[in-house]
């Protein structure tokens, strides 16, 4: 599998461990990841301000991928949503496509709408497949209680994101199943982490975040799994230290099962994960 590796703005500078982790794990699963220096922001931060400004960067990023003949693999839900939204909107608005292409042609790019946008989870579940992942596993987990926060912009609106059943999502649960984890049924799974309001209405953003953290604690989760840079930054970096609720990415859990070490898996970027805790999780890996 060959993908254009789309990281967005947050991951390289604020969660660089995850970038390393994703590269290491995906390469072991046989993916070829092509990085583009010319990628820009997906446009998401512009969405409150101006619709054209929101869509144009995604059109350019897709045009770059089209030119190289690759599909995009996206690690962040908001980037994923923006790219899919741009694709969805432009499919129905030829006038806007023409306007954007006039801008893109200055640098030799053209948007056709042919590139596919793949969220990491779709790539893992559909392109790579459970069988291959299974083959690479050394050991699965035993008795690990995990709360998944799906991320709003990955699930909805269904006709735009083209991802999973937006009311009863299955993909993440199935991916966790491969690792021997049964994801918990909890109230925060389909809801908002508050990131979209952070820096704009901090009180409300914090309230939404604390609601999720409290619910996860109530369901006695060992850890939270996030699939988005925004959710992760909210849950991991803004979590009150006393809660000590670790937040991980799926690829980190998978990497541990593949016998990879902490540096390869970028745990230095998880503020909520302590060395001691990592040892306990490793002890929950089934003995061979």
């Amino acid at each position, binding site marked *: 599998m060959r993908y254009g590796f789309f990281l967005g*703005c*947050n991951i*390289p*500078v*604020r969660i660089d461990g995850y970038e390393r982790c994703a590269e290491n794990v995906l390469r072991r699963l046989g993916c070829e990841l092509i990085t583009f*220096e010319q990628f*820009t*922001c997906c*446009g*998401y*931060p*512009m*969405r*409150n*301000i*101006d*619709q*054209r*400004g929101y869509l*144009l*960067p995604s059109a*350019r990023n897709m045009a770059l991928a089209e030119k190289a003949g690759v599909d995009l693999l996206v690690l962040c839900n*908001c980037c994923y949503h923006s790219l899919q939204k741009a694709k969805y909107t432009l499919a129905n608005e030829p006038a806007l496509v023409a306007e954007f292409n006039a*801008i893109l042609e*200055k*640098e030799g790019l053209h948007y056709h709408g042919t590139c596919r946008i793949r969220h990491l989870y779709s790539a893992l579940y559909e392109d790579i497949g459970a069988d291959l992942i299974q083959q690479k596993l050394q050991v699965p987990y035993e008795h690990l209680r995990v709360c998944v926060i799906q991320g*709003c*912009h990955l*699930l*909805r*609106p*269904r006709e735009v994101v083209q991802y999973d059943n*937006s*009311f009863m999502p299955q993909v993440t649960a199935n991916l966790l199943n491969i690792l021997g984890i049964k994801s918990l049924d909890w109230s925060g799974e*389909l*809801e*908002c982490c*508050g*990131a*979209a*309001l*952070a*820096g*704009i*209405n*901090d009180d*409300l*953003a914090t*309230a*939404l975040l604390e*609601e999720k953290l409290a619910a996860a604690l109530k369901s006695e989760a060992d850890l939270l799994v996030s699939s988005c840079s*925004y959710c992760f*930054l909210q849950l991991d*970096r*803004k979590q009150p230290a006393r809660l000590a609720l670790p937040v991980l990415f799926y690829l980190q859990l998978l990497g541990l099962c593949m016998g990879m070490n902490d540096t390869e898996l970028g745990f230095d970027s998880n503020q909520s994960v302590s060395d001691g805790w990592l040892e306990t999780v490793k002890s929950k890996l089934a003995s061979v």
Partner: protein
Amino acid sequence: MKAQLLLGLSVCVCLIGLLVRLYGWSPFFISSGLPVDGENRASHKKSPIASFLYWIADVLLQPRLFRAGDFRWMTHLLILAGFVGLLVIHGIPPLANLLFGSHSSMSASHLFLRDLFGLMVLAGIVSAVVRRLKLRRFRLVSSKQDWLVLLLLFCLIGSGLMLEGVKMSSYSVYTRMNDMYGMTARKDTQLALEAFWVSEYALVSPRFASSPSSDLVEKGRKINEQSCAICHASNQYNFGGYSIAAVFGHFFAEMGVKRSGAFAYYLHLIFLALFIVALPFSKLVHIIAVPVNLLVRNFNYSPKLQGIAGYALALDACTHCGVCTRTCSAMMFFETSGNSAVLPSEKVQLLKLAAAGKDLPERKKKQLQQGLFLCTSCERCSVVCPSGLDLARLFVQARYFLLEEKRFEPLLLGQFSFPLSFSKEFSGNHMAALKQVEQLFQTKLAKLVGAALPLPVKKRLFALNSSYHSCYSCQRCTNICPVVRRYEQPVLELEMLPHQLIFALATGNVSLAVGAKMIWSCSTCYLCQEHCPNGVEICDIFYGLKNRAINQCTGEGRA
């Protein structure tokens, strides 16, 4: 005498200019408070000696520039190496004597190196011009100053080469030289020597209208070897000047040897004086500011800065090379907003003026302020800057510097503010700025509170998204909203609930919907839209309303 006066004066002006710059940089070095490390980046502690060595390598080999592109690196290194070379062998005579012995200026290696270095600079200039023209379509902005500095360099080197050419072809220079150093007074020997110089050294002599015979030249060659070559190497080593003399020699002679000689000499002198004067007052100051800035950075000196003035040193180190702009994550927002201050390289130009204490015109301030907020905080500019500027940190601080003048900035309400919610350094400023926008909305936008009831039914439609027509007020959206359920009295806090907003649109009261606080409390979770039984795109409609609210208020200036 005149020349020394001119150069002396220009050096004085240059020194005064440098002192002014140094004064401008001083807030950085006397900043109060404890040094802070880059917030997210781990600072690597090195020993002082290692730091010093790193600094030397940074300044001389410019690895940062190499990372920005090998073409770009080669261009700059040609200019830098050529210029340093010229300074050593040509600009400081004692140094040249040390390297090449006395009579240094006429030794073969000196003549050759002088032209080699000169041509390196010229090649660098050509390559820089090509780069600036080629990258225009990739949003590389070139200012008048960029072109003028390149032109000045070109003129300085070009006039030097011309001066060489004029001197070489000049008969009066030749005869004077002959009078001073010549070892023979015999007429036939003189003629032969002259023939040799005409034929081989590009001399233009009135005694040889056509090329001299080869016999005579051969005779002259022997005399030259005996009496001249000991001190005076072949003019051909001076290959640049020699080519000019060979091509234009007769033209110079026709112009009048004296006149063209003086002309070339003063031209070179004037350009040199201009260069010295321009050094502290143009982007050429980066020659000093970059090494100082890198030195500071290599020693991890990063004080807590009060205000934008503390960044004067860093800003002066900017060469307007545009590498940051080429990699900027927000570059496309320049295309849709038309605001060049979105591009980091252009932001820096405006900030330079602001840091120097100049009061920018209102239009420029607005442009700069909006440019500062249309930034994704990806920090790539800090990573790629060849001069080693921490642009990302500078930009974050500058956002609030302008807002201190009690300005409104509705663009704060974009998700560009998300990374700022982690920064403890500016949280107070950020909150105050948000409060100001809230006040602006209070006065500029329509509010339900105080509106005459019952609301009239208007024909005004919301064109952006017409899906609201299918709403039948089942209130599913409001019931599932995670924000609404946070409040005991949601109507009081949010002014209008989601289904009420949609109803306002349906009755044509668009302005009320635009002014409602609800849209700025929307967490954009899309639960309402996903659950709407009639397919009303509620969340997307909210985005459209937010766009309109900001659009209506971006024209506002001060509070």
